[in-house]
């Protein structure tokens, strides 16, 4: 073999490798959700502070781990919120013996929910995004509703005792909690749809 051919062979190997890597660039990156862009985009926060895995492969590994944990914690949170809802309804009907359980449980459910939400929102980017509407996209849109609801519900709950209009404050807390629980249940159901 001619010695002149060796650099050519290296160039060929390099180009083949470079091609296989570029084939796996993030598809439809422009469709990446805003929160992921802010954290993990080219100029994202985590990139600026040099935080996170060094390779894309490790990023994907971390993403899958975070989303798997998110899934489990979200299911637990949903169960706890459903229980919280039943306690809340009993209280609204006049059974105030449930007050301490409702208060105590709200902290646990809220902590589980926020941990689960953080794992999803802070996860590194996926390998592929899409323009069309899919079950997972609606799942994400619904998350904005139940996340806002979960932020508001504890304050609205505390507000009941301090409010001048007890009925109005209770109704507001109950309605926001119901919307939060409904959107979260729908969000969970969407994950089992094939499309």
């Amino acid at each position, binding site marked *: 073999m001619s010695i002149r051919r060796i650099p050519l062979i290296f160039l060929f190997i390099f180009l083949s490798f470079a091609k*296989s*890597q570029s*084939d*796996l660039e993030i*598809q*439809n990156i422009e469709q990446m959700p805003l929160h992921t862009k802010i954290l993990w985009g080219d100029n994202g926060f985590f990139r600026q502070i040099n935080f996170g895995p060094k390779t*894309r*492969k490790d990023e*994907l*590994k971390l*993403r*899958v781990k975070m989303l*798997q944990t998110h*899934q*489990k914690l979200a*299911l637990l949170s949903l169960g706890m919120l459903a229980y919280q809802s039943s306690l809340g309804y009993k209280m609204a009907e006049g059974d105030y013996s449930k007050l301490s359980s409702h208060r105590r449980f709200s902290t646990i459910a809220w902590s589980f929910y926020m941990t689960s939400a953080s794992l999803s929102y802070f996860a590194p980017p*996926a*390998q*592929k*995004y*899409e323009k*069309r509407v*899919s*079950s*997972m996209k609606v799942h994400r849109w619904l998350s904005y509703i139940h996340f806002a609801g979960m932020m508001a519900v504890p304050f609205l709950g505390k507000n009941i005792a301090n409010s001048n209009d007890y009925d109005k404050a209770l109704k507001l807390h109950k309605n926001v909690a119901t919307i939060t629980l409904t959107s979260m249940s729908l969000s969970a159901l969407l*994950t*089992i*749809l*094939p*499309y």
Partner: protein
Amino acid sequence: MNRILFLLLISISFSQKIDINSAEIKYFGNHFLHSWIGISNEVKSTVIYDELNRTGSVLIEVPLSSFDSKVSSRDSNMLFYTDAIDYPNVKFESKEISMIKDSVRIVGNLSFHGITKSISTKAKIKTLNGFKAKGSFLINLSDFNLPRPTFMFIKIDDEIRIEYTFESD
């Protein structure tokens, strides 16, 4: 010697490369809660058909990133679980082809996730007004040393069905 050369020339003249206009590969995934289909149309293929000897050869390569299951996060997970950064393509190369009436039995090597396994598949062939081949086969993820993703605490099925269609005018 001349006779052998003559036979070889005859055989070559009857072997023709078929320009595939449309190719589709589907995989069928299953979980106890739902099933899904991933489709790729970005298939690189070389199909040679020897009409005289009723045989041929097939070479197929498909990038894993080209599969679309209609949910991008699922496709993204698939790319992670199949180690698509290190093994971006799935390749099939036929070793033995035998035709029986309007169908063909193909035995060949499937290379996926850095592991090569021999598989056998039977395809229906139509040669009137162009060329069409359609068939399927089953693979096990565990045979290719692939971990099975978990959803709602339960793993997806190990067995994946692959369906393929190749057409030419």
